């Protein structure tokens, strides 16, 4: 119980920095397709760990959303001056078969998007 205030503080920090929704990120803008590639398997037997990669030359930030999860935000990648590319790979949880969407904010302020349907055999969100 003594740890609670620290934990609550960290939680507040996490919420302030959270990935949010696609609508919040776009803030009314429209995303085009073509300059962002999203790689994910067509079929994922285990929804607990699904490999995804994003690659968006010229992007300053790329966010990944899983629309069929309890909360859609998955990750936000911000690239710094020493980023060797605007690409990254990670492993994510998918609750079930759904579309995974990535949105990239480009250096000129425009947005790019890409989506991929992933069929999930065993969901990865417990419950």
């Amino acid at each position: 119980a003594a740890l609670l205030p620290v934990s609550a503080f960290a939680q507040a920090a996490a919420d302030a920095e959270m990935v949010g929704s696609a609508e919040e990120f776009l803030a009314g803008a429209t995303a085009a397709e073509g300059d962002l590639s999203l790689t994910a398997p067509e079929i994922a037997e285990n929804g607990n760990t699904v490999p995804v990669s994003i690659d968006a030359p010229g992007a300053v930030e790329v966010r990944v959303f899983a629309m069929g999860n309890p909360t859609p935000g998955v990750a936000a990648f911000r690239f710094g001056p020493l980023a060797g590319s605007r690409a990254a790979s990670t492993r994510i949880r998918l609750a079930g078969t759904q579309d995974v969407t990535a949105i990239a904010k480009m250096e000129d302020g425009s947005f790019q998007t890409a989506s991929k349907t992933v069929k999930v055999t065993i969901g990865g969100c417990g419950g």
Partner: protein
Amino acid sequence: MADGVKPRVKVPSSASEGEVITIKTLISHPMESGQRKDGDGNPIPRSIIWRFTCDFGDQNVIDVVLAPAISTNPYFEFEATVPAAGEFKFTWYDDDGSVYEESKKIAIG
């Protein structure tokens, strides 16, 4: 602090100046999503790593915000430009306030 948290990072030991290298990182962490329930039906509180950064000196390579949808033992692979001999620093921020750090030296040549 979550139990048994151990960061692992793969960085080449040397590169040429300005070369783009691939970095792989993995940290052992349960990434408890907050969506699961225990045997009595009570929700298990969220406990995740919510941010990961990689820097070289005072310059950033990548800054990632993680949601509970990132898998157990968060893994990231990305590329960095090597500006000079020095050290890549990696930092993971836990919901409970813990900060885990790792660094890797890289030589030019």
